[in-house]
């Protein structure tokens, strides 16, 4: 990466930061970049989506400074390529099950089993789970999506979604719009898509009585969450380092929560440990 900055901390850095990857992380990264740049006008930050796979590959190739990913590098890269990458768990995201308002008025909570039955297309009508007499419309993300991977793992207990019965949506934005507009629709998005006006467009569903909120994530009650990773090839330096530091700084954490992302450091350590252990296990 073109790099012309020196030093660390705030104020004095200059240079370029280029990132790519996860589309779920992009809004945060962009928001942070904007704030970061306000302080460091000599830094140029450019960020792109492309998907976690792309981000990881590019950072491993060295074509970008930061590779954003919803999943751990080991899931998408061969182990020797993954091993040179340094992980920065910049935040956590929780995935909320969302339904169209007409369902949401009647169905506020589902058990994990119900959820699994719905997403594997065993349950086909909302009335089976106490909702209106409407067929269930599944809306999912592509198989390569990090959001989908997390949701499948922690909400559906690793069960495969019924792709052939679901409508797949490339992007969370469009998925949200689809759920909003289609009766009986159910799907999932990161909480970050449910801030501001978006909150009222759809209804969220509690799982086993736990509502998908940041608090429930921090305290470990709500299991459907994951880290968002920003990988660098080797240790971060200069502007990149400053940028990464800025994201995880307390200065920015308020803003982060406003955007619907969870601050990594706020997660209770027990929760962190068990999740880390799980991830290490699954990546091996």
């Amino acid at each position: 990466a073109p790099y012309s900055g020196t030093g660390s901390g705030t104020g004095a850095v200059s240079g370029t930061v280029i990132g790519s990857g996860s589309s779920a992380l992009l809004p945060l990264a962009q928001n942070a970049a904007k704030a970061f740049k306000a302080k460091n006008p000599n830094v140029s930050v450019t960020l792109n989506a492309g998907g976690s796979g792309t981000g990881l590959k590019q950072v491993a190739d060295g074509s970008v400074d930061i590779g954003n990913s919803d999943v751990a590098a080991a899931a998408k890269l061969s182990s020797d390529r993954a091993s040179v990458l340094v992980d920065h768990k910049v935040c956590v995201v929780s995935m909320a099950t969302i339904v169209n308002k007409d369902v949401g008025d009647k169905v506020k909570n589902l058990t994990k089993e119900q959820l699994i039955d719905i997403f594997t297309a065993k349950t086909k009508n909302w009335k089976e789970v106490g909702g209106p007499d409407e067929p269930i419309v599944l809306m999912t993300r592509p198989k390569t999506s990090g959001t989908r991977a997390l949701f499948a793992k922690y909400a559906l207990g690793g069960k495969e979604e019924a792709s052939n019965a679901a409508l797949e949506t490339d992007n969370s934005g469009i998925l949200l719009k689809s759920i909003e507009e289609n009766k009986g629709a159910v799907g999932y998005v990161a909480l970050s898509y449910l801030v501001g006006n978006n909150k009222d467009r759809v209804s969220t569903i509690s799982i086993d009585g736990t509502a998908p909120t940041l608090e429930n994530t921090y305290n470990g009650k709500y299991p459907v969450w994951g880290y968002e990773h920003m990988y660098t090839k080797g240790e971060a330096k200069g502007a990149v380092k400053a940028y990464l530091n800025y994201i995880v700084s307390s200065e920015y954490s308020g803003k982060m929560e406003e955007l619907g992302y969870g601050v990594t450091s706020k997660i209770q350590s027990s929760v962190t440990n068990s999740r880390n252990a799980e991830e290490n296990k699954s990546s091996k």
Partner: protein
Amino acid sequence: MKNKEQAQAASRRSRTADRFMTGVFYAVAGFFLLLLLAFVAYILINGFRDATPQMLSFTEDGVGNQLFNTLYLVFLALLISVPIGILAGIYLAEYAKDGPLTHFVRICVEALSSLPSIVIGLFGYLVFILMTHSQWNLFAGALAVSLLCLPLITTTTADAFRALPQEYKEGSLALGATHWQSITKMLLPACVPRIMTGVILAAGRGFGEAAALLYTAGMSTDINWSNWNLASPTCALNPFRPGETLALQVWASRTESIASNATQIANFSSAILILLVLLFSLLARLLNRHLDRKATGTES
């Protein structure tokens, strides 16, 4: 007399059919015209209804930078594809002998022109980004778009050359001009109006292109308008910086953005894009008419 009556009956039948079909044609044409009108109106109204002046600004909140990127990218793409396209077109029309090679070039050009732009985008990503070990940048985007424009310009040029009467060339050669002189001094100037049209159509294609840019031009832009150091990544004129275009931005704000006014911005950008297309189409027509008049001498 029976014959005559028969003829009259047949004539009555065919006239009825004629009137009916004329009605059908009017209806269909009217329908599509209305559809287009509604389409354009919808986009424009949607776009400008909630627009704020700030949206035009050259900041993160406006689409000024994207607009600039769009124009700049298309400009770069044309800079690359116009000369190549014209030269290749000249080859096809003037030098290619009627043989397998020529046939092959022709098929290649046509294949290129009917290639899905997403495929071009992927190719561009691999070759212009990965193989050059660079990052998303405008120039890579321009190269990808120029791949899209290239066949268009090539075929327009070749067609324009072929459409010229054979007599022009014969006339020139018979005056002792070489083939190359004939091309540069006579045929090419005579083709300018038609090539122009092709170029403008190609530009229109560049404006609207998103799929080919997803993986090449990048989806963010960061311009410092006070920085004119060409090597700097924030310099507007540095082609080797990422540059989100309007179409890409529409795509991005429709899909991923969590900004609260993302939809309005997207609508606004769409409207701007449509205006651009309209403008260019108009420009092409005016230019063409002007050149045509000049060439045919109908201008008084």
